[in-house]
C-alpha cells in the first residue's frame, strides 16, 4: 500500500503554514528562527516527495534538499550569532522591543 503524493504535500503545506504563522506572530526571537526552519523543512518534504512520486521522478529533488539543508544550517548559524550580539547589547530576545529605528 503506498501513500498518495497529496498526503505528503498536505503535510508540507501544514508545516509551511505553521512556520509562516510562527515567524510572523511570535515575540521570541529564537522561536522566530525555529519557525523559519520549519518553513525550510516543509520545502524539503516537498522536494523529497516529488523526487519519488512527482511527474518525472528522479534523484535531483533529493540532491536539492541536501543543498537546502546545508544552506539552512548556515543561515541559522548566522542568525543565532547576530542574535547573541544583539542580546549582549540589549539584554532582550523579544522582538517587540527591537524598535529603535524611526518609523
Amino acid at each position: 500500500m503506498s501513500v498518495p503524493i497529496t498526503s505528503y504535500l498536505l503535510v508540507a503545506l501544514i508545516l509551511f503554514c505553521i512556520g509562516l504563522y510562527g515567524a510572523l506572530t511570535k515575540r521570541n526571537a529564537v522561536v522566530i528562527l525555529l519557525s523559519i526552519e520549519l518553513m525550510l523543512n516543509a520545502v524539503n518534504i516537498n522536494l523529497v516527495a516529488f523526487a519519488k512520486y512527482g511527474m518525472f521522478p528522479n534523484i535531483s529533488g533529493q540532491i536539492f534538499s541536501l543543498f537546502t539543508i546545508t544552506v539552512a544550517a548556515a543561515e541559522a548559524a548566522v542568525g543565532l550569532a547576530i542574535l547573541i550580539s544583539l542580546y549582549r547589547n540589549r539584554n532582550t530576545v523579544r522582538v517587540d522591543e527591537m524598535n529603535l529605528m524611526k518609523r
Partner: protein
Amino acid sequence: MNGASKWGNLAQYDWTVMSPEFTILGVATLLSLLDLVMNKNSDRRILAWIGFIGILIAGYFVVQNTGQNVVSILNDMYRLDGFANAFKLIFLVGVAFVFLISISYVDEKQNVKHSGEYYYLMLMALLGAMLMASSADLITLFVGLELLSIASYIMVGTRKNHIQSNESAFKYVVSGGIASAVTLYGMSFIYGLTGSTNLYIMAERLSNVFQNGFDFLVYLSFFLMLVGLAFKISAVPYHMWAPDVYQGAPTPITAFLSVVSKAAGFAIILRIFLIIFGNLVNLDMTNGQQSSVLVDTLGLYIAIVAGASMIIGNTLAMRQVNIKRMMAYSGIAQAGYLLVPFATLTVLMFEQTIFYLVAYLLANMGAFAIIMLVNRDRQTEDVKSFAGLYHRAPWMAIAMTFFLLSLAGLPISAGFFGKFYIFMSTIVHSSYWLAGIMLATSVVSYFYYFSVIRQMYMRPGQTEAPLKVPFTIAAVVLVALAGTIAVGIMPDPVLQYIHHNFPLQQMFQASGQ
C-alpha cells in the same frame, strides 16, 4: 586534451570562461589567509587595496569574455552569455565603488572591529551575485542567492557594538530567511511538475504540464517565487525590511545593498522567469488562438507590483528625515521603475533594464559616497546634516545635485534617458495606467530629492569650515559624476554598446552558438 584524463568529463570543459569567478574566489581566500597571519594591530587597508586589484582583474576577464559565443559547462549549471556578462560588469563596478568608499569609512578603533572580514565577506557576496547572473540551474541559482544573502547579513551586522546595526542585521536575517523559504517553496512545486532543476528542460516540460490541468500549481509557484525574490530587489510585497536595514547598516554596505544586491535580484528574476515561463501559451478554446502567458497574464501582475512599488516608495520617502531611510524608500521606487520593462516585455526590454541599472548604479554610488562623508563629519544621519554644504565643499554639493537629478530623472543626466526609455516601453505596450503612475510618482519624487538640494544651497549650516574630502571618495564621486553626465549627454553609444555586446537572445541559445 585527449579526454583520457583521470578527471573524466570535467577536463573537457572550457574552464577559462569561469576566470572572473575564480579570480574573486582566489582573492577572497588570499585575503582571509592574510588576515589570519597579519599582526593584530596592523593597518588592514592594504587588504582592501588587494581586493580592489582583484576586482579590476576580474573585470578585465569579463571584458575579455564579452562578445563571445555561448559557453555552457556542467550541464548549464554555469553559462556564459551576454546576459551574464552585462550583469557581472555591473556587479564588479558596483563593488569596486563600495571598496573605495569603505577604505575611508572603515576604522578599526571607531566602528568596524574586524575589518579584514569586512572585505572578504564583500568578495564572497560578489561571488554569489556573479553565480546568480550566470547560471541556468535552480540549485546553483539558489546557492548563489544564499551566498549573497548570508554574506550580506553578516556585513549589515558588522558594527557589533552598535545597537542599531545589531537590530537591523537581525531584522534582515529574519525577513531574508522567510523570503528564501517562500522562494524555495515555489521552486519545489515547479521541480515537482517538471522533474528537473535545469531551467531549459523545465521550460520544455512545463508547457505540456500547463495544458494538462496543472495550471493552478504553475501560477502558485510563479507567485511564491515572485514574492520571495521581490525581497532581494525590495519591491512592494516584500519591501518593509529596506528602511530599517538601510538605516542600521554601515553606509558603504547600504550602498552595496541598494545597488549590487538589487541588481543581482533582477538578474535571478529575469533569468528564471524569462526562461521557465517564457514559452507558456494559453489556448483559447473558442477560437483556437494562442496567447503568451508571461506577456498577457503574468505581465499584468508584475506591472501591479511595479506600480505599487513606485507609489509606496515615493510617497513614504517624503516623510523621512533620515537620509538613509529616504534613500531606502527611493530605492523601493527605483525597483518599481526597473520592473516596468519586464512587465511590458518589449523587444528592447533587456537594453532598457541594463541602461537604467547603469544610470542607477552611477547616481546611487556617488550619492552614497557623499552621504557617508557628510554624515560622518556631522555625526548625524539627518537630512539637515547637508545644510550649507555648498559653502563647505562646493564641488561635492554640485556633484550631489547631479546625482539627485539623475535619480529623479531630470535632463542632462543618465537617469533621464533611463526613465525616458522605460516610459516609451509602457507607451508601446499601451499600458497607459502604468505610464500615468510613472509620471505622477516621478513628480512626487522631486519633493524629497529637492529637499536635500534645498538644504545644500539655501539653508545655513552650523559650520562654515571646509569639508575635507579623502582621495578615494573624491575618485568615486568624480567617476560617477563623469559617467552620469556623459551617459546623459550621449545615451545612444551606450545603448548601442549594450545592444551589440550583450544580446539577450544568447540566453535561449545552446552552447557554441
